[in-house]
């Protein structure tokens, strides 16, 4: 445990700007570890970590696992299907069983908002939220912040617009909190049927049309449109969605200034984003993925009690 971040990382809403900056700064020296031929430092040697994924995930789970392994932790993966969860075990029983095994950290992804906090309140281990329902996905928010900072040199004063299904997006909520705390202006743009009630009261600007958002923004973070939203009646068709809200090359060409394009993945090419944009020169989508590992290493390191000022030494093997 460390006072730097508290016991758990459940979201960015309750972190201070200093804590967020601390994570980003701690991630910087860890970036280099992944560039080495031998991608391993001993910072978390002897620590046991469970990656508990109640929802399917490829990118986030692999990213966490690499972050853990590159810090030399012992990791175990558990997925919902085929586990005791599929047999009807409650979350509280899962928590108690993990506790009984004396693990040090739990990375949890769960379909219910609040699940990570629920677990954190019931076990002594550190809990890291890898996405809970529609609530938050803090490490995604952090890696987005790091990527913006890398690309644009700062966050403060930038106009960042989240585009798409904000209603169902935990990525959107973590981005909103993180960006606002670091002094960016935040916009959201999408069909009103996919905007949560009272979103403007969080201090964000709502754009009705994508053209207005593009004119305003320095950064567009294009959210994934889950295909089932059409079936559940929030939008009439993916075809029309792309036509009205799609981030296309033609639209970007009219941008008054340099635009950075982000996407948390996985992308639906031709739905929320044009392939030519995703693969184009303004896209930092793969940098986001690279930064994901470094940010998660930083979070794991800090929650495990690592000293921020020793992160650089830690990666050389002298930390702790």
């Amino acid at each position: 445990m460390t006072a730097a971040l508290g016991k758990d990382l459940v979201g960015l809403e309750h972190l201070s700007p200093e804590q967020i900056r601390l994570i980003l700064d701690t991630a910087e020296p860890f970036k280099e570890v992944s560039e080495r031929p031998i991608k391993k430092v001993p910072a978390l040697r002897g620590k046991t970590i469970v990656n508990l994924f109640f929802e399917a995930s490829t990118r986030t789970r692999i990213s966490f696992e690499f972050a853990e392994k590159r810090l030399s932790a012992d990791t175990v993966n558990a997925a919902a299907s085929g586990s005791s969860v599929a047999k009807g075990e409650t979350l509280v029983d899962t928590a108690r069983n993990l506790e009984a095994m004396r693990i040090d950290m739990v990375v949890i992804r769960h379909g219910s908002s609040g699940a990570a906090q629920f677990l954190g309140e019931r076990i002594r281990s550190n809990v890291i939220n890898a996405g809970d329902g529609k609530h938050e996905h803090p490490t995604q928010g952090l890696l987005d912040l790091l990527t913006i900072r890398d690309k644009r040199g700062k966050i403060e004063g930038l106009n960042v617009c989240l585009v798409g299904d904000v209603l169902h997006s935990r990525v959107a909520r973590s981005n909103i909190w993180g960006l606002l705390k670091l002094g960016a202006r935040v916009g959201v743009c999408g069909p009103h049927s996919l905007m949560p009630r009272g979103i403007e009261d969080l201090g964000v600007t709502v754009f009705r049309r994508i053209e207005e958002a593009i004119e305003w923004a320095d950064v567009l973070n294009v959210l994934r449109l889950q295909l089932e939203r059409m079936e559940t009646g929030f939008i009439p068709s993916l075809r029309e969605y792309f036509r009205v809200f799609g981030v296309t090359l033609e639209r970007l060409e009219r941008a008054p200034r340099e635009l950075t394009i982000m996407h948390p993945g996985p992308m639906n090419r031709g739905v929320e984003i044009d392939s030519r944009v995703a693969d184009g020169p303004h896209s930092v989508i793969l940098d986001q993925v690279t930064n994901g590992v470094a940010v998660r290493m930083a979070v794991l390191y800090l929650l495990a009690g690592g000293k921020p000022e020793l992160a650089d030494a830690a990666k050389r093997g002298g930390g702790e």
Partner: protein
Amino acid sequence: MTRPLLLKGGRVIDPSRGLDQTADILIQDGKIAAVGVGLGPPDDAEVRDVKGLVVSPGLVDLHVHLREPGNEDEETVATGARAAAAGGFTAICAMPNTDPVTDNQAAVGFIVRQSLRAGFARVHPIGAISVGQKGERLAEFGEMVGAGAVAVSDDGKPVVSGHLMRTALEYARTFEIPVADHCEEPTLAAGGAMHEGLVATRLGLKGMPAAAEEIMVARDILLAELTGGHVHLCHMSTRGSVELIRRAKERGIQVTAEVTPHHFTLTDHACEGYETHAKMNPPLREAADVAALRAAVKSGALDCIASDHAPHAYDEKDAAFDDAPFGIVGLETAFGIAYTELVQGGVLTLPELVARMSTHPARVFHLPGGTLAPGTPADVCVLDVTARWTVDPAAFHSKSHNTPFGGRQLTGRARLTLVGGKMVHEEAPAAR
């Protein structure tokens, strides 16, 4: 027969007769024998000095869930009736969403028998509107009324079909019973876990908009007007609902409505931190709704206060917010919350509160009680409105302890509860 009982020197409040004065009450043969100043007790009478206390008609709760049959681990008719007595209630109305559903005369008769066997507060069954609460065809109102049902409701679920609601209101007229509806437009509220608003947005929880309730309130009012039936609207939670009811009453439509202590006390902020004890349906709303509900309790747009006592096992609430069931227990906190929030809060006088927790609900469902008139059954409650206490869920008589009010400081609680002249609850003055 028990000895006659003289309650001496209390502040007697009987809204049914506009009475609020220091007086004695003589209870004999299970009935109120006399109310007056300086009553001479019969030789064998037990005399209780209730100076400084309030003597009122027993409280009446039109809306409780007793979980028997089906979930006796959470509550039974007996434990619910015991909890009611502890809360000052002498009569409670049990909703039919049991397992199996209380939708026929045998099932209604079972509740009545369990209640008589328990012998605490009277338990009046409410029969289902539709067979199995499936919303398809009418249950047998006539036979259920014959077995003791005092109203019909599919509570827990809304009556989705406008046609079924219309027919129920028409058919219920024969038996002069109200049709109580849980107002929720199901396609708008589907999957919702709390009030739709900023808190839900921040927590990432699906909200239920106020309009989901108000649409059904409006529909039910229109159908009551169409049919001439009596619609009773359960647990009203929004300012829009209150406004619709106010206007309907002005037009003389037969509509009555209830509000719970939690809806006029708490807002959706109680759900912060994913507090599952604040998860209920209808959900806790916003401050403006709370203010409108309070004003409507005063004005009479809302007729009565009902607890919507909804017991759940502790481990059911120990879950992620989406997975936890709706509802909280309320029988043992209702009066304390209402007194603290409404009387101490300057909304109601004490006689007005007694009217809304006793006389009015009895009138709405045509129940005996709600009065201290001589010759009526002695359903009486002695209230201590100076008692300050802290809610301790572990001390509840109810089998379940799911309440968001644990640890809350309240003023006012029942000291004695008498049903038909029989003492069913007694709380020592020093208690807690």
